[in-house]
């Protein structure tokens, strides 16, 4: 392979991982907009989506589609429970306290997952076979297309929700001005529940489409969550379009860095990018509302 071909290959595989990061980042942004909280349990939603799906397939012999639906539904319930049990009772607490609460919740969720499913890696079969598809000299698995498709569909669905549905508009109103939204009769706590439910569902989708590529395990959530957070910061925290762009960009940068520089430091790349963003443009590539110098 020539260097150009290699780069093209890395780019495509980077887009695939980037699609997952984009979905995770979207979850971060959703919750951040509704609550101002950085939900460090976001990565656990990704883990839950993959694990519940894999487990329902092996335990009950369910077909992929129904198992995936159970995965999404189950994770969404966990998201709502997280809001009710941990975030809602701590309303008004300082940012640090909320960070500790979401991290504590994520440790708890991971611990329970470890007890239920054990430490073994689980496999979800590829949705439509393993035969690679050639695109201009590079190979891409059909599952990669599933990931990108899921990212695209989710992004469009989100956009439609926020643009055209009552609940979506209400959530946007809450993000822009919670007090004014309340005066218009929008119940903030319901919107927060919705945003966590949505974030959990999106996280689960990411986990399910990613599982056939990387396999899944009870402890994959932390790193995926933190990288998704880097993607959200890269795109500008709280910015939906930025989350998608940040996720894809981060995935590509990570694949290129791992492929061309050093695969050993792959896990550090996202965080180097995060620090670079903080130094150069703290409001993110598409952000503008927050950040800035004193």
């Amino acid at each position: 392979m020539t260097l150009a071909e290699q780069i093209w290959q890395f780019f495509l595989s980077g887009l695939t991982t980037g699609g997952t990061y984009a979905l995770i980042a979207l979850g971060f942004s959703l919750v951040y907009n509704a609550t101002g909280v950085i939900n460090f349990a976001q990565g656990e939603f990704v883990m839950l989506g993959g694990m519940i799906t894999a487990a329902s397939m092996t335990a009950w012999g369910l077909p992929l589609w129904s198992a995936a639906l159970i995965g999404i539904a189950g994770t969404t319930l966990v998201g709502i429970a997280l809001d009710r049990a941990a975030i809602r009772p701590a309303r008004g607490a300082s940012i640090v306290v909320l960070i500790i609460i979401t991290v504590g919740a994520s440790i708890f969720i991971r611990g329970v997952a470890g007890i239920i499913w054990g430490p073994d890696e689980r496999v979800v079969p590829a949705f439509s076979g393993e035969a690679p598809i050639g695109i201009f000299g590079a190979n891409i698995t059909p599952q990669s297309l599933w990931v990108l498709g899921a990212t695209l569909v989710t992004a469009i669905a989100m956009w439609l929700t926020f643009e055209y549905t009552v609940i979506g508009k209400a959530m946007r109103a809450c993000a822009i001005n919670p007090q004014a939204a309340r005066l218009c009769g929008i119940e903030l706590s319901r919107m927060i529940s919705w945003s966590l439910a949505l974030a959990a569902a999106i996280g689960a989708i990411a986990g399910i489409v990613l599982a056939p590529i990387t396999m899944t395990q009870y402890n994959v959530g932390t790193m995926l969550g933190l990288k998704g957070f880097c993607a959200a910061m890269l795109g500008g925290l709280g910015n939906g379009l930025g989350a998608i762009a940040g996720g894809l960009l981060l995935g590509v940068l990570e694949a290129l860095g791992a492929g061309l520089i050093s695969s050993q430091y792959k896990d550090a790349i996202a965080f180097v990018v995060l620090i670079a963003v903080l130094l150069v443009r703290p409001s993110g590539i598409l952000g503008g509302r927050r950040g800035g110098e004193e």
Partner: protein
Amino acid sequence: MAAVREVPPDNDVHDEVLAATQRRRAQKVQIAAFFLFVALVPLAVHNRYYLHILIVVGLNLILATGLNLLMGYAGQVSLGHAAFYGIGAYVSGILTATYGCNPWAALLAALAVTSLVAWLVGKPTLRLRGHYLAMATLGVGIIVVVVIRQTTGLTGGAAGLTEIPSMTLFGRELQSNMDMHYFYFVWAWVCLLTVLFANLVESRPGRALRALHDSELAAQTLGVDTAAFKVRALVISAAYASIAGTLYAHSSMRFLSPTPFGFHTSIALLVMVVLGGQGTLWGPALGAVTITAIQEALRPYADYDIVVYGLLLVVMMIVMPGGLSRALGALYGRLRERVARHRAGDVAR
């Protein structure tokens, strides 16, 4: 306000200066009493496991005290403080184990490296308003662990760095199989660093930190270079972590692996400070003892330990967002009030 001037002033000046001196003296007595108590502990505790745990408590206390300076006084959050701990430990470990360096020289080198990293992270991010330091330290925390894991030639990677020599004191080795010596050594550091901390917060730079935490604008108007003071607080806080790291490297295990310096230790440190009560002298000590005790108590229950730990974090933060020391203080106040009311009732009858 006219009434204000009628108060005889001289007595007040005298009283207040006296009261301040008394407060400081009371604090000194508290510190002395605490460490006297600690010094007596090995007389009662002969079990080496417990001594080891008490050493861990001491290390956590140093870490939490340093982080408290940053969080409770300068109002900044570090989500990667374990990285500074790790840098301190590994620089000490590598210099002594691989290069045969004197442990004290290694301690200083570790301090220098850690402070430099902290300065490099803080300088650009602390000029910004908002929690950018938290994000940057989060990143640094993970990068440091990845680097430790991957530079196997230097750090031993995931397998760990072994055969770290003992700490020496006046030419004598603090034999690591004699945990009592090391216990006193670590707690002497805890004592020293606590006294330094108590001095610092009651001084010009300490007040500058508390001032900028309250109102950056007002502090600047009085000539406080707020960005510089925040960076200094971060550097000192990282230096505390570095010392704890060096002490860890030379503790009885004489072995370093990347695991204790990851994200979850950073969060545990955060919890010690917040749970104990940030911005208080004894809060983080309380937090360090509580969290270390919880972690050690849960250790035998493999698999269930993190479930309970995660649950405890959530519950404690919801119930006591202001920290244990404030919650206990409030409880004490309520009890005293009840007793007083009870007595008043008796008198009335």
